[in-house]
Structure formats: structure tokens, C-alpha cells
């Protein structure tokens, strides 16, 4: 029985040698091939680490990405990349600008999926930045309509999802952190994600985080995916009572470690969180992961958080006779 499978949301921190290399590459002091070699090295290290600690469904760690929206935009025709814009604190990203009709130039993330999957027998997720988030996190100088820009992204991202599936992805995750940005646009998001996932045989996942879940709760069962991946520990597990009253009809990947805190949650605390989740969700439909991508932590912090998470999940499995 597959119970309490462990996974991750997507990003892991970059080791220092890769951060330095990216800086050099941005100044033209390192060739694209030289950078690629180091990105592959870091990806391999994270794959090995996930295998070593026993994670069930792996991610490639996004060592080749700066920002999740910018990376996709850089590989789509019809976009330019702006200067730096602040997200919070001291974190900035280069925001895409839509300047022309959006077109898929070719595979965006498939090569990296293939590279990562070739190194492990365990499933690696295919990762797509969702159409609504791509639209919401881009400046639009071309379409003049949020819906038109969103659907243009959705169509080309569907092609990317199909390509990931053809490359062997058993799980395709659509990241929509912007999901809760405008409640009145939730129907737009549902339609756009539906375009991306239409006809896929792979398990489909939608990840979102840092929103007012109570406001969007009614839409959870309407999202056209098999699994929801939610940040839960940062929001204090407040949502569990609501799930008790209004059951989720999908699998849930349940965030149990806070990715924006330096504090390392002890295994015992994570076990408590998993036990709470188990009072609501069936173990076969409950996956365990961090709240969000771990890229803002140090490599050491991310590793310890993941180790504790997996140890806690395994301990709960054993305690419930689920192994």
C-alpha cells in the first residue's frame, strides 16, 4: 500500500559553487556550457540526497532556474525580461514582460526532467509554472487582457505538459502560487489549468501557497488535477477543521515544514502535524512534503528539514502499521 508517500514541492537551495557560477555567467565570465555542467552536478547531488534519505517522489531541485516564472518566460517567444522587482524582504526577481504573441519555442523543462529521471528509478515530477501565475507575474504590453494572456500561456504549457509525459513523467505538477491573488479570477484559473492538464494520463498536481485558503476553499474540488499540494504548517494547520466538514475529493500533499523559517522543526513536531493530518485524510491519499520550495533556505537547513520530514513520515507509517 502506498501510504504517506514523501515528496517535495520543487526548488532546493543552490550550493555555493553554483551561486558563484551563476554570478560569473551573468557577467560573461563563464560559458553557458560551463554553467550547465555545474547545474547538472548540483542536480545530481540533490537527486542522490533525496534517494539517500528515502523520499518517494523526487524533484529535480530547479538548480537551473533563477525564478520560476522568469525561467519559463526566458524559454517562450514573445517575452522580454525586466529589471529586478521586489517580492519581499531582500528577495527580488526579474519579471517577464509580454511584448508579443506568446509561442512555445521548444521544450522548456523537458531536458532537465529527462536528465534528472535518468539518474533514479524513483519517479521525478515534471514541473510547470502554471498559466495563471505566469500571467499574473508578468507585465503585459501586448494582450491588454488578463484572460487572453492567461489562455495564451495555458495553450503552450499544455504542449509542455504533453512533452513531459512523453518523456516519461508519471507526475506533472502545475505550480500556481498566484492562485489566491484575485478571488474573482478563480474561474479563469480553473479553465486555464484545465487546458494545461487536458488529456494527460500522468498524475496531475496543483501546488499553491501563502494565500487565504478559506476564501478559495470552494474551488479546491473544482481544480482539474488529481492532487492538491498545499502549504499547511505556515498557516498553522488552520484549515483542517474545514477539511473535516467539507472533504477533499482529491489526494493532498500536505506541507509540514515551514520553508521561510530558519527554525528546524524537530521530528516530533512534524510527527504531530502528520498525525493531525491523518485524523482528516486517508493515508493512501495523504502525501507529506515541505510547505513550498526550499530554495530560500541554506543547503544545510534544507537537508535537515527534509531529513526530519522523512524520518517523521516513516515513524508515523510504522506507528500505524502502514509499511
Amino acid at each position, binding site marked *: 500500500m502506498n501510504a504517506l508517500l514523501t515528496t517535495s514541492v520543487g526548488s532546493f537551495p543552490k550550493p555555493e559553487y553554483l551561486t558563484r557560477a551563476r554570478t560569473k555567467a551573468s557577467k560573461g565570465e563563464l560559458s553557458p556550457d560551463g554553467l550547465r555542467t555545474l547545474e547538472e552536478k548540483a542536480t545530481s547531488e540533490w537527486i542522490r540526497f533525496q534517494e539517500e534519505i528515502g523520499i518517494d517522489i523526487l524533484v529535480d531541485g530547479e538548480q537551473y532556474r533563477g525564478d520560476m516564472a522568469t525561467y519559463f518566460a526566458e524559454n517562450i517567444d514573445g517575452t522580454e525580461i*525586466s*529589471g*529586478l*522587482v*521586489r*517580492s*519581499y*524582504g*531582500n528577495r*527580488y526577481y526579474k*519579471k517577464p*514582460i509580454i511584448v508579443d504573441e506568446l509561442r512555445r519555442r521548444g521544450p522548456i523543462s523537458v531536458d532537465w526532467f529527462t536528465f534528472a529521471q535518468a539518474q533514479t528509478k524513483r519517479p521525478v515530477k515534471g514541473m510547470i509554472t502554471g498559466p495563471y501565475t505566469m500571467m*499574473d*507575474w508578468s*507585465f*503585459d*504590453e501586448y494582450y491588454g487582457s488578463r484572460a487572453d494572456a492567461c489562455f495564451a500561456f495555458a495553450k503552450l504549457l499544455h504542449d509542455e505538459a504533453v512533452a513531459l509525459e512523453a518523456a516519461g513523467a508519471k507526475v506533472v505538477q502545475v505550480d500556481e502560487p*498566484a492562485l*489566491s*491573488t*484575485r478571488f474573482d479570477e478563480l474561474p479563469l484559473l480553473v479553465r486555464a489549468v484545465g487546458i494545461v492538464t487536458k488529456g494527460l494520463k500522468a498524475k496531475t498536481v496543483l501546488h499553491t501557497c*501563502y*494565500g*487565504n485558503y478559506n476564501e478559495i476553499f470552494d474551488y479546491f474540488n473544482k481544480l482539474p488535477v488529481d492532487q492538491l499540494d498545499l502549504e499547511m504548517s*505556515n*498557516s498553522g494547520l488552520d484549515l483542517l477543521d474545514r477539511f473535516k466538514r467539507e472533504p477533499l475529493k482529491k489526494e493532498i500533499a500536505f506541507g509540514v515544514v*515551514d520553508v*521561510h523559517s530558519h527554525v528546524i522543526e524537530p521530528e516530533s513536531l512534524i510527527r504531530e502535524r502528520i498525525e493531525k493530518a491523518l485524523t482528516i485524510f486517508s493515508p493512501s491519499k495523504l502525501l507529506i512534503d515541505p510547505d513550498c520550495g526550499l530554495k530560500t533556505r541554506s543547503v544545510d537547513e534544507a537537508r535537515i528539514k527534509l531529513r526530519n520530514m522523512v524520518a517523521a513520515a516513516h515513524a508515523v507509517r510504522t506507528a500505524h502499521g502502514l509499511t
Partner: protein
Amino acid sequence: MVRTTVVGTYPRIGETSEEQALRRGIARLDRGEIVEAELQAIERDTVRQVLREQNEIGIDLVTDGQISWYDSQSHFAGKLVSVETNGLVRYFDTNTYYRQPVVRGAVAWKGPVLADDWKFAQANSKVPVKAVLTGPVTLASLALDKHYRSKKALALDLATAVGEEVGSLVQAGASNVQIDEPILTRYPGDLTLVSEALERIRSHKARSTLTLFTFFGDVAAIYKDLGDAPADILGLDLVQGSATWPVLAKHGSTKPLVLGLIDARNTREEDPAAIAKKALELKGAVDLKASYLSPSNGLEFLPRDRARRKLQILRTAAQKAGVGA
């Protein structure tokens, strides 16, 4: 001449090495390589840059860009009695996040938060610097209230604290104070509470000019009543809040306005002549000579170079509008 102003925030960093000093400084502070006082010196250099850019473009009423603010909520609320700050929460419909203030008891003002920064900015600007504060109803709405269990009660105590802060700014010399209440674009029914809270603030403003600014949407449903709010000037987002325009055009305004006609959330550049023409549609219905043109909200959602370009467009539009005003 139609005057120009900004709403509050300005991009903290740009693309050049000099414009990235603040980012480097914060990273160095995090690594323990510099101390707070050194970071403050870097912040102040950044404020000088921000003021210089606004001065050079010719903006009439500027701000310090709110450079030292971590975010619009915790910077002030986090320094009040009984308020802690918690995890990250999305700020309205932007892709930015604020540390959520958590109210554990009765809130109260401890002492000036913004006055020193304002004095520094004014000393480094050729034109008046506007002091900007987040309004008490927006603060109350976005905080996690573990004490009052009543938005009104919390908002009114916050209003008392904001009022005392305004008093300290006026005492420091501020002649223009702006209270931001973006929450009105989401909950127009809060206007009564906003007005009640503003009454408490107004008692501290002395002879300064008090502006009430709403952004991130429209206030069409409450526009007619908004004119009765106890503020001297009303600021309106007329881009994301374009639905306010028809009501504004129909009813005009007895108070001077800040017309947020330049899109501060998109890089697409406006035609200054079209902006001027739009503003002049209000001729006779609004006292344009006492009003301002501005971006639709703070400029921090744009890259620095694009923010500068938007201010240039704003200035050109105001000059063109001035010819016809």
C-alpha cells in the same frame, strides 16, 4: 500648471552596482559582516538617490520611497505596544508579501517611528517631502487580531496611534501627510470606519495637508460619500480603479484630488498627451490647479528604470495638462 506627486514606495534597487547597494548591505547584515548603523547609512544613501531621481525629473511633492520599510504593515504596526509580527502573507493582489502583525493586547503608540526618516529626507530634497502612513483600517484588516475580536475597536485604537505618529511628523516639520487606505477598494463598506478613524488622526494634523489615498482598485460605489471623509485631499487609483472614473467625471469633486492615472503596475508606457487629455476632461468639475497627477499606487512594483520612465511620463503629462488647465 498641474502638479505632480508620487504615492509612496519607490524601487529600492536598480540594475547598476550603485543602485544595488541596499541589497548587498542587507545581505551583509544577515551574514553578520556589518552592523545596523552601517545598514542605516546605506539606506540613507539609497534615500538620497531616490530623492535625487524624483527631484531631477521635477516631481513637485515627493516621498522618501519608504526605503526603510520592510513592508507596508509591519514597519509601523510592529513597533506598537502589544503587536508582534508573524509569517508572510500576500499583500492584496500583488506578488509581494508582508509580515503579518499579530495583536496580542491593547495597542498603543510607543514613540515616533517615521519622524527621523522624514527629517532626513526633507533635508535632502529640493521640494516638500510627503509623509506616508498606512491607515488604521487597512492595518486592522490585514493584522491577525488575537485581542479585540472587533475590527472597529482595533482600528480605532490604531487610529489613535497613527494620530500620535502624525503629530510627531507635523512637529518635525511635515506639511503634507498621506494616509493610505487601500482596503476601501476591497471593502467599501468600511468607509464609515475610515472616516471615524480619520477624525482621530485629523486632530493631530495641525496645519498640515492631510491626504486620504485608496489604491489597488476602484471606489465607485462609495465615491460620492468619500468626499465627506475628513481629509483635505483625496487620492484615487484610476488605472486598476478605472471604474471610479465615470462617477468622478459625472460628480466632480469639491476637494482637490490626486489623480492616479499612470499605471504603476505595468511597464507599458502611456502617451503623456492622452493622460493630459484625460485629466483635462475634469476641468470645471475638479480644481485641477490644486490637484496632482500621480502614478496609480506606489512604484515598487516596477523595475527602477521603468519607474523612472513612468515619472518622466507623469511630468510630461502634467506639463501638457497645465497648458490647458
